[in-house]
């Protein structure tokens, strides 16, 4: 009896484990498919040029996402301007200069902890620091600064990874030829790491595009009848517009939300496609 049990478990154990795992993965992917199909089925009919170029309206059929789209472009561009240079600089320091020492270790632990802080907490920081204390109000610049803090740890982590992938022999060769440390980093290490760095940046920014909670917390408006035209304008972004439509009970607004989601997903898809192409090139070059 015992032996039979053993034999059965040998025969079926692996099979069972594998089929359960495949089932789980299939369910997850089915959920993803259901999500996409549902969104497209609901929203496709609402997509049109005027949906992209109209202002929000009390009548669902007239409403569009123009201010939200422009707001997203403003906020994300500024976020990149603020977060990218600092993020890359910090990553270079941690990876190339401060490899040892208690301070670097502290910074490292701190960054990985920051990456796990819920995004809404960054919203509270932005609300108290940028909106109130620095008096920036509920403006584009306050929103971008908040998102910059949010993506900074992600930028630092991914840039470090890209720098780490550059073989040390390249640094050694450059140093041996008499280049200084910074010359080595600027002329040798960074160009090689660049595709990896860019991939990380794009992924970090596409995370920022989808962020809703911190911007709601700093008080980005949910109804904006105009597009932002300066750093100090009030603004809304695409995910907040979607959220706004979702929180209304009428079916027609839910349809608008689906159409907005399609646009948001297409933007993200585009960015990720660029990231994948870059990663591909990167891997091919490294051979």
């Amino acid at each position, binding site marked *: 009896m015992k032996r039979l049990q053993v034999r059965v478990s040998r025969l079926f154990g692996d099979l069972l484990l594998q089929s359960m795992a495949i089932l789980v993965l299939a369910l997850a992917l089915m959920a993803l498919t259901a999500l996409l199909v549902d969104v497209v089925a609901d929203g496709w009919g609402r997509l049109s040029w005027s949906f992209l170029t109209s202002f929000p309206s009390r009548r669902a059929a007239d409403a569009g996402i123009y201010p939200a789209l422009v707001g997203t472009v403003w906020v994300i561009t500024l976020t990149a301007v603020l977060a990218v240079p600092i993020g890359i600089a910090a990553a270079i320091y941690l990876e190339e200069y401060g490899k040892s020492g208690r301070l670097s270790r502290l910074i490292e632990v701190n960054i*990985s902890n920051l990456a796990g802080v819920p995004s809404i907490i960054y919203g*509270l*920081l932005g609300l108290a620091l940028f909106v109130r204390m620095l008096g920036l109000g509920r403006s584009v610049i306050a929103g971008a600064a908040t998102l910059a803090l949010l993506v900074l740890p992600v930028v630092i982590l991914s840039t470090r990874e890209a720098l780490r992938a550059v073989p040390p022999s390249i640094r050694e060769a450059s140093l041996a030829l008499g280049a200084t440390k910074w010359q080595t980093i600027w002329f040798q290490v960074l160009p090689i790491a660049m595709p990896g760095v860019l991939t990380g940046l794009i992924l970090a920014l596409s995370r920022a595009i989808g962020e809703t909670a911190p911007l709601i917390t700093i008080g980005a408006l949910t109804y904006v009848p105009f597009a932002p035209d300066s750093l100090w304008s009030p603004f809304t972004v695409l995910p907040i517009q979607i959220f706004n439509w*979702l929180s209304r009970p009428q079916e027609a607004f839910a349809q608008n939300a689906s159409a907005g989601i399609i646009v948001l997903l297409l933007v*993200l898809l585009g960015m990720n496609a660029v990231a994948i192409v870059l990663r591909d090139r990167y891997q091919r070059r490294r051979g």
Partner: protein
Amino acid sequence: MTDAAKRAGRDRFRRRAEFVIERALFLSAVGSVLITGGIIAVLVVETIAFFKEVSVLEFLTGTEWTPLFSEKRFGVLPLVAGTALVSAIAMTVALPAGLLSAIYLSEYAPDQVRRTLKPMLEILAGVPTVVYGYFALLFVTPLLQQFIPGLAGFNALAPGLVMGIMILPLVSSLSEDALHAVPTGLREAALALGSTRMQTTLRVVVPAAFSGISASFILGVSRAIGETMIVAVAAGQQPRLTANPLVPVETMTAYIVQVSLGDTPGGTLEYRTIFAVGMLLFAMTFALNLVSNWLRRRFREQYS
């Protein structure tokens, strides 16, 4: 000026430039510590101001949360219960499913399959959370209502399940890293002693990767607690102390969103409640992240 002097001058300039650059880079790196400092300072200052008007004891043990009503009560437990309920549902999905798929991807899947499945899971992780909120509210809830007649339009169940799907890739990829880091020698030894692949996996590889796997679990819990938009869209805005997943609840994060949507002037007690709730949220996730990092580091040291 002689050539030698010129060269010496240039060298000096270079050395100085190197020094300045290093300082500048260093400052950027230190800036990240300032973010943490800023978060803690902001939360602490507003929370202290909050506790001047509301007792700590009432906040932490009170069972009614009605700061927006005329009869104000500041017991945070209903919000904590809402958060715990939704997170628990999410983790019942994400933990077993994440571990199982990690085991499959690391120990069983052929290379080709792994290379197609992993990017797909990454897509799941990259979907904006407000989109998941839409999914929970307008797809999963109506679907579940066909099987569970008592399910309210806003509830903890649907957002919990959807959140589980969202967290699955995180748990799966971190657990897979942990399994992957287990030396092949251990597997070979187990197989050589006559174990099947499953026995090797479940009795050797998984226990060997235990601290790495638990790190991924804890990080998943932390992510669930801090997740905002799914619950803000689909779980409702009714703080209540319940373990019933079928009725509307409110989480800590959803409360912060609810207050932020109204135009709350700074300095009022209402305004401060979101910082007090934020402080609690931050403390919880921070503690979990520290434990998770510590476990992961310990795991890495074990095998390298």
